[in-house]
C-alpha cells in the first residue's frame, strides 16, 4: 500500500467511526496543511499497526477477557441500597443468564422511555398506572368456594376498581371471553363462576386460583412499575416485560424502550436487535460491577457467535458447544458418550480442523503461528 496522505485516502483505510473521529479532530485542530498531512500519515500508520493479525485466536481472547473479570465479580458483589429502583438480578448470575440464553430472565425488566410530548411527571404516572397489570385477585376483597352452589365467588373492591379505572361491565365481558367453558354471573360487587359440568371441590379450588390470576387490566406480565427522572427525562422502570404490547402504546418512545429479555427482543424486533441487546446487557452487568474497562470487541464477538445462526444459541452444551462440527471437540466438552455413539451411527468424520482435536492427537494446532507452513525450501549447499 502506498503512503496515505490525504483525507480521501484515509477514508479508504479507516473504519467509518474512526475516520469520522479523525476528521472531526483534524477540523477542530489549528494545524497547518503540512502538519495535517503528517498527522494523517501517522494516524494511518498507527491504524495499520493496530490491526489484528491473521491467525489470532480472537475467540479464546474474548472468552478469557470476559471470564477473567468474572472471577473478580464474586468479590465485588454489593447491592446498592436505598435506591428507588426495581431490583434486578445482577453480577455473575446475570452474566450466566445472558450467556445461557435462558427463555426468560429471572427478573424480567423494562426501561420505558417517553415521547417528548409525554415527558412530564403526570403523563409518566398515568402511563405507569395504565400498564401495571391488575389481576382479578388484586381488586378482590375476598374470594371463596361456595360449596352450597358448587361455585367460586369473588367479592370485588369498588374503591380499588375505581382507582385502577376498571369498568365492571367491560371487565366481566372480557372475563367471559377468557373463561368460555364456565358460567359467569355478576351481581353487584360479586362475581361468581361455575363450571358447565359438575365439578369436584378440588377442581373448584383450582378454578378459584386460576380465576383470581386472570388478567383484567393493564399490560400482561408487567408486575411492578416505578417512575424515575433521569437526564433524558422521565423513564418508567418495570418489573416484568412485555415488549410487543408496550411498543403499541401511545406516548412511548419505541426507539429507546428496552427490555432485558433477549428472546423477546429477538421475537419482536429480530435477531440483529437481539444481538445489540446481548451486548447491552453484558456491558450493563459488567459496568454495574465496576468492570467497565472490558473491551467491547470481546462482548461483540460473543454476541455474534450467539446470534450468527439467525436464532439465539446458548453458550453451552445445548448451544454453540453442542453443535460444533468436530466430534472430538464435542466429546471433550460434555456428554462424551452421547457424542461418540451418535458419531459412530451417523458415520461422522472429524477432519481435525480446530484446536482441541489437534491437541488430543499431539499435532500442531491450526491457529496463530501453527496456521502456516514454510513453502519455500532453501537450496541446500552442494556437496563437493
Amino acid at each position, binding site marked *: 500500500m502506498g503512503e496515505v496522505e490525504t483525507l480521501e485516502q484515509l477514508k479508504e483505510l479507516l473504519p467509518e467511526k474512526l475516520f469520522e473521529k479523525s476528521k472531526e*479532530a*483534524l477540523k477542530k485542530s489549528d494545524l497547518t496543511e503540512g*502538519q495535517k498531512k503528517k*498527522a494523517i500519515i501517522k*494516524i494511518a500508520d*498507527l491504524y495499520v499497526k*493496530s*490491526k*489484528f493479525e*491473521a491467525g*489470532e485466536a*480472537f*475467540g*479464546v481472547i474474548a*472468552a478469557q*477477557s*470476559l*471470564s477473567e*473479570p468474572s*472471577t473478580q*465479580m*464474586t*468479590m465485588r*458483589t454489593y447491592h446498592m*441500597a*436505598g435506591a*428507588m429502583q426495581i431490583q434486578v438480578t445482577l453480577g*455473575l*448470575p446475570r452474566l*450466566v443468564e445472558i450467556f445461557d440464553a435462558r427463555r426468560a430472565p429471572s427478573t424480567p425488566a423494562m426501561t420505558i422511555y417517553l415521547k417528548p410530548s409525554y415527558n412530564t411527571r403526570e403523563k409518566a404516572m398515568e402511563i405507569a398506572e395504565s400498564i401495571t397489570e391488575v389481576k382479578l385477585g388484586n381488586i378482590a376483597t375476598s374470594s371463596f368456594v361456595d360449596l352450597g352452589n358448587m361455585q367460586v365467588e369473588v367479592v370485588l373492591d369498588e374503591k380499588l376498581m375505581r382507582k385502577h379505572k376498571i369498568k365492571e361491565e367491560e371487565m366481566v365481558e372480557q372475563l367471559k371471553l377468557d373463561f368460555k367453558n364456565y358460567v359467569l354471573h355478576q351481581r353487584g360487587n360479586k362475581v361468581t363462576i361455575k363450571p358447565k359440568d359438575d365439578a369436584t371441590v378440588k377442581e373448584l379450588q383450582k378454578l378459584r386460583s386460576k380465576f383470581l390470576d386472570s388478567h383484567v387490566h393493564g399490560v400482561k406480565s408487567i408486575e411492578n412499575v*416505578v417512575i424515575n427522572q433521569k437526564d433524558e427525562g422521565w423513564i418508567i422502570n418495570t418489573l416484568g416485560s412485555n415488549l410487543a404490547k408496550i411498543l403499541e402504546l401511545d406516548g412511548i418512545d419505541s426507539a429507546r424502550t428496552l427490555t432485558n429479555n433477549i428472546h423477546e427482543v429477538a421475537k419482536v424486533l429480530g435477531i440483529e436487535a437481539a444481538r445489540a441487546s446481548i451486548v447491552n446487557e453484558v456491558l450493563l452487568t459488567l459496568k454495574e460491577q465496576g468492570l467497565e*474497562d472490558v*473491551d467491547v470487541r470481546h462482548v*461483540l*464477538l460473543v454476541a*455474534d*457467535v450467539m446470534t*450468527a445462526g439467525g436464532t439465539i444459541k446458548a*453458550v453451552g452444551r445445548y*448451544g*454453540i458447544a453442542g453443535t460444533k*462440527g468436530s*466430534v*472430538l*471437540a464435542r466429546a*471433550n466438552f460434555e456428554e*462424551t*458418550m452421547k457424542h*461418540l455413539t451418535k458419531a*459412530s*451411527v451417523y*458415520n*461422522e*468424520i*472429524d477432519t481435525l480442523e*480446530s484446536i482441541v482435536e489437534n491437541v488430543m492427537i*499431539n*499435532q500442531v494446532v491450526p*491457529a*496463530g503461528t501453527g496456521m502456516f507452513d514454510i513453502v519455500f525450501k532453501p537450496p541446500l549447499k552442494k556437496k563437493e
Partner: protein
Amino acid sequence: MSMINKIEFKLLSPQMVKKLSVVEIVKAELYDNDGFPMEGGVMDPRLGVIDPGLRCRTCNQTIGQCYGHFGNIELVRPIIHVLYAKLVHKILKSICGSCSRHIGTAKKCSYCGAEQKDVKFEKPYSYNEGEKILTPLQIRERFERIPQEDLPNFNFLGGRPEWLILTIFPIPPVITRPSITLETGERSEDDLTHKLVDIIRINHRLRENIEIGAPDFIIEDLWELLQYHTATYFDNELAGIPAARHRSGRPLKTLADRLRSKEGRFRQNLAGKRVNYSARTVISPDPYISINEVGVPLVIAKELTIPVAVTPNNIEEIKKVIQISPRWPSANYIVRPDGKRRKITDENKEEILKEVGIGYSIERHLQNGDVVLFNRQPSLHRMSIMAHRVRVTPWRTFTMNLAVTPPYNADFDGDEMNLHVLQTEEARAEAMMLMDASKHIRSPRFGGPIIGCEHDHVSGNYTLTMEGTEMNREDAFRILAEIGVEPDLPEKKTFTGKELFSHILPKGLNMSFKIKSMKPGCEKCTAETCKHDSFVVIENGVLKKGVIDKNAIGREAGKIIDRIQREFGDEAAHIFIDRVSLLGIKWFEKVGFTVGLDDVDISDESKKKIKLELEHGDRTSNELIETYAKGNIELLPGRTMKESFEANMIKLLVKVTDNIGSIVSAGLGFNGAIIMARSGARGSITHMTQLIGCVGQERVLGERIQRGFRGRTLSHFLVGDLTPLAHGFVSNSFKSGLTPVEFFFDVLSGREGLMDKSLRTRHSGYLERRLMNALQDLKIEYDGTVRDNNKIIIQFVPGEDFIDPHKSDWGTIDVNSIIRSVK
C-alpha cells in the same frame, strides 16, 4: 512426520470383531493352579503381554512394542448395546413391525399394509410392543430385514442397524486392563476383567441351561442377567439399574466411566497432558531482576536441560562443558546418534569426552538467559503464561519482579508457580517474539497496561516527586546509579525528586493528566494551574508538575507506562517499569517509610465532632423509628412500609458514616498510612475512616442485619428493637475497639464475603469453561474475517473496526494525541 488428517467414526461389525479376534474366550477362570494365565481365559497370553521380559504369543514382540490383540466371545443370545438403546427404540418406532421398511410415524405400513403397534421403551434396555415384550432376538430379526436403501432415511450411515444388537462380543487386549501384583504377591485384576469374567460366566450358564432344555423362566432370567452384565460393562452409571459393584462395595469403573467427566480420558489425558522439562516451587519477590526475568534455584537449573547438537563449531565448548560436570553449568546426558542416552557422571566423563563427536547431542543445564515459560494457576488469561529469561540463583525459590505479579495475580504468601523449559529453537524463538513478559504489558482485555507498579513502588515515587522533596548531589548520584541509569547530573548542589524522576523518562515524552488523589474539596480541576500539584505535566521527558501516583505508574492504570509503551515500544516500557519500581524502593531505602498505630491518631477536636455526628445520627434514627411506629413513613414506590423504613434508615446511617468520613479525612495529618491511601499504593480513605472514625453499617444480603432470634438479632435486644445498634451499626472504630455485639455483627458480614467468594468461583469457573468451549475455534483468517471451525463467518470485520485491543489505546486509536504530537 506422518500426520493424521481425519478420524472417521463407524460401527464395529460382527465380521470385523471376528477378524480382529485372535482367540475365542471360553473359560471364566483367569489363572490355572500354577498361577499361569489360562488359555482361552480372559487373560489369555495371546491377547498381548503385560509382564516385562515376556514375548507376545501372537506377534512375538515385547511389552512396549505389542499393542495387544482382541479376543471374542460368542453370545448365546443377542444383547442390546445399552449405549445405543435409545437409538434402537427410535429405529423400532420408525420401521414397519412386519416388513421392516422405513415408514416414519405412519400408523399403517404403506408397503405391506400392516397395522403398526406403538413400541414403548423402558429404560435402560427393555422394549414392549403393545402388551408383548420385544426380545433382542426379535429386534435383531427386524433390523436385519431393513433394506440397505432405507438406511439413509434414518441417517444411519455407520453400518447396519442389527450391529447395535450384539451377537459376538469383543474382548479387549490385556494391556487395556492390566492386573497389578500387590506386595503380598496377590494379583488384583482390573475392573474390566472382573466384568468380562461375569459376562463369560453367565454366557456359559445360559448356554448350558438352553442345552439341557431348562424351563423358559430360568433362561429368561439368565438372559436378563447377561444383558445386565454387558450393559454395566459399557456404562456403570445407567439410570434405572443398580451399579455393578466390587466385592468391597465400590462401584466398578467400566468403559464409559473411563472416558467420561473431568477425570476421564478426554479431559484428563487428551485435552491436557503432563509434560517433562518443568519445575514447580514457591515464589519470592526480587526487585533487582527485570520484569522478564525469573530467578531459578541452582538445584532446579541443574535438573532442567536443553538439548544442544554437537557441531564442528561448538564441539570444543561442549567438551569444556562436559569437563566441569557435575558442577553447574554442565550437562546431564549425552545422546548418541542412534538415540541412546547416557548420563554424564564424575566417573564416566573422561570416557564420554573421548567418545563425543559430531552428530551427538548433549542435554545441558539451564543457564542465564535461557528462555522459559512461567505460569501460575489458575491460568485465567494468556498473561498467565509468559516467557522469562533465566537467572540462576543460589536460593530455593523462584524469584520474580514485583511489577509482574498483577498478570499472574500472584503474591508471596506461599504461592507456587510452574516453569517450563523450551526444547526446540522454534519454540524459543516463538516464545521470545510472542510470549515475552515485556510484550504483554498491555492487556488485550481493556487495552491498557496490566503490568505496573505495586505498593511501595507507588508510595515511594509519590513521596519522591512530592513538592519540596530534595536531596544532595551524592544521594541523587547514588540512587541513579543503583537503578541503572547513567547519572548525568548538571552542576548543582541539590536536586528535587521531580528532577530525579525525570531521569528515567524517555526523551521526547509529552503528556499531562490528572492524578488519582486530588486534594479533598478541590471541585473544579484547574488543570495546568493546579495549586495542589495534582496535575502531572511532562514535557520532553521532564516532569514539570504534579505528583506521581497510581494513576501514573500503577498496575492496570499507569498512564505513563501506557504512553511510553505506545510511543516508544515494548522495550522502553519494560525498562521504564524496571527502573521506576526500583526508584521507589531506593528512595524509601534512603528516607525510610513506616506505618504505625499513631498514624491513626486524630485530634480531640475531631473526636468530639465524630461523637456529635454519632449522637446526631442516634437522634435522627430515633425520630425515624417514631414516625415508623406511627405509620407516617412516606412510601417508596413499589415498597412496603417496612421496606421503605429500612431504605430510609440505611440512607440515614450511610450519611452518618459519610459525614464521619469527611471529618476524618479533614482531620488527618500527613503520615505513612495517608501516603499509602492517597497515592493508591494500598488501602483507601474508607479504610482510614473505619480505623479512626466508625466502622459503619454491617450488611448481610444487602440489608441491615435482620436474622437471628424471633423479632430480634441477638438476645441482647428487645423484640422489635429497630435501633441502628440492634441491627448491626458499628459506631466504634477498629482502633477504639468493637463491643462484643458489634464484633459479632462484623464477623457476620465478613463471613458472608467468604461464602460469596468460595461459592461463586465455582460458577465463574464453569462459565469460563463454557465460554472457552464455545469460542475456542474462532480465529482470524487470512481474508480478515472471523470464522469458526466450519469456516462459517462470524464477523466480517473483527471487532467491527479491525483494531486489536492488545495493540490499541484503551480500545481505540488516540487521534488527539497524534495531532498534539505533530504540532
